[in-house]
């Protein structure tokens, strides 16, 4: 009787493994999904140039606008990146530029150039969760987060607006302004299609949406995106224009010289 039960358990286990195996082979782990998503969303190409229009819309519908050129360069396999952001508008901040040396494993280095004073200032960068220029996007939303900052679990496969997607739940390892995040990640293009952030009381906090996805060269790119704060009603719309990949931006662009004097070839 005892041996029969053992055999039955063994057979059950074999069946379980056989059933589970195809599913595991077909679906990458949640970490793998998020890793590929971060690569597609923040590391596409070797370099990138884009003209960014940002609309900051408050709950009364009042609009503030930001017009920028964004340059990005990936530095090999280390995951280090360089970002350069130049403000064309509004008039009061025209000519202001930001330089970010981003590292996956430590705090970023960040500088701002104030044109009226011809002043370059290094700024403390321990604020990945701070708002980027008053928008609903954080610095982290702009330049990427680290895979290890969160734990990830695959919830299910689910289509979203006609695209096949993985639904992944991520929770920050260190206390943060959100307690968990649901991401719908395109199963073929690996771009995030939608993200929902929840606060500590599990109330919806912010929603990200990829409103337009286009193929530019070899790269699938989110060219229209939005972020809405569900608690304040404030939202931000971002449009990428003139997006170019692998145009040959050199590392020396990302230095004090060009922070003071925008590189005419790229910033136009």
């Amino acid at each position, binding site marked *: 009787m005892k041996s029969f039960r053992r055999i039955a358990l063994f057979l059950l286990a074999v069946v379980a493994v056989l059933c589970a195996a195809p599913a595991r082979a077909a679906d990458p782990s949640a970490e793998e999904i998020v890793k590929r998503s971060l690569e597609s969303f923040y590391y596409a190409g070797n370099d990138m140039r884009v003209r960014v229009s940002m609309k*900051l819309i*408050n709950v009364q519908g*009042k609009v*503030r*606008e930001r017009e920028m050129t964004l340059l990005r360069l990936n530095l090999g396999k280390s995951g280090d990146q360089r970002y350069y952001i130049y403000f064309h*508008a*509004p*008039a*009061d901040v*025209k000519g202001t530029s930001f330089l970010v*040396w981003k590292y996956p494993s430590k*705090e970023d*280095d960040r500088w701002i150039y*104030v044109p*009226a*004073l*011809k*002043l*370059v200032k*290094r*700024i*403390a*960068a*321990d*604020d990945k*969760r*701070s*708002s980027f*220029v*008053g*928008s609903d996007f954080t610095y982290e939303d702009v330049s990427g987060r680290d895979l290890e900052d969160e734990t990830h679990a695959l919830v299910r496969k689910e289509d979203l607006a006609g695209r096949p997607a993985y639904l992944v739940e991520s929770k920050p390892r260190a206390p943060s*302004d959100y307690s968990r995040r649901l991401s719908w990640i395109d199963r073929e293009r690996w771009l995030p299609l939608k993200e929902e952030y929840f606060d500590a009381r599990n109330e919806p906090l912010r929603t990200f949406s990829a409103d337009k996805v286009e193929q530019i060269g070899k790269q699938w790119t989110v060219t229209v995106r939005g972020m809405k704060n569900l608690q304040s009603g*404030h939202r931000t719309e971002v449009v990428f224009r003139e997006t170019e990949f692998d145009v040959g931006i050199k590392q020396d662009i990302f*230095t*004090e*010289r060009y922070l003071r*004097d925008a*590189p*005419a*070839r790229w910033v*136009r």
Partner: protein
Amino acid sequence: MLASVPPATAAEGIAWNGFVQSHVAARTSGVNCPDGTECDFPSAELRSQLETEGKNAAGNTGFLGRFDLLRDFALDDTRLETRELYGDLRSEKLAARLGRQVITWGVGDLLFINDTFPRDQVALFTGQPQQYLKRGSDALKLNAYPGPANLEWVIAGFRPDNTPTSRRFVLADPLPAGLPRRTEEPGNNPNELEISGRVSGYLDNWELSGYASRTHYRSAALGVTAGEIVGTYPRLNTLGSSLTGPAGKGVLSLEAGYYDSPQDRAGRDPSIENSQFKGLIGYSRQLWEDATLGLQLYGEWMRDYSAYRETLPAGFPAKDRLRKVTTFRFTQLFAHQTVTFNVFAFVGLSERDHYVIPSLRYAFSDNLWAEIGANIFGGNRNGMLGSLQDNRNVYLTVRLAF
């Protein structure tokens, strides 16, 4: 060399921008001002700035002009100021800029050691926006970029600081009253030109800079000769360096410099600043979202202190050999960065005085903002900051950009 600049695909063309701004600072201390001093409003003005900027398609030639038309109600004066007007030539390894231009060096926050370019203390003490804290230099600036270093030379004519005078400020004046006064500014003769140089580069993600200059003091050294008070601008040589980089979760800044007074190497001329060492250490970091704290410790060490003490005229307060100042800055942004609260404080550790500047700014839109703030001087009246305490003021600035 110019041919090596890669061609751009589109011309930037010529852009026009500007703003209109009203700025009023009202004195809050109840002193009776001497005759000739603007007592109620040290600053009351309406200003319009027009900025024009252009560059060619390749980006190797450009210009910028920034002009202020100013109605100064405090001094009942209308004037046109050329804030900046320069032309640029650039190539891959060299750049030149000629004309009136603002130059800012160093790593201090409202503390300047190796940056000896002209400043505007009147603008600071009356709460003008930060862009008015520096004055342009009439200069030729040359940059060279050989590999990893950045070399900069500046050849400039003399321009003084805009220092407080008794027209707008209540100032203690230990010099004899009733004597005629005049100032003699250095001209533009070749032997009176100013030459400054900077070399900077990255050491990993730290930035290291070295500086040297042969320049002038920019506030007048007053001396009594032949029945009149003559202000001159003595020669000044400086040599120094700075270093800034990440430390913990913040930014660490270090700067040091030596000020050599070649016209008074013995330190026995009381009208000329004693040669001195200057240094600062600063640290800034984020406290929480949209809030930043910055601290600095600054010191000036006089080289010939005994000569200074022996020759100090009666009636002048004696400075310490080592003059120490700390500064504090706290900034918090609210409401999607449309509201900025900022407080900056100088605290004189040696002179037991202080100068605190709180301010609150609200951006009504992308083009319209208003700021209220105060300039609060206090403490020991013999201190540099405390001596200004009759000039405490509150200010209001409104700017509409177009």
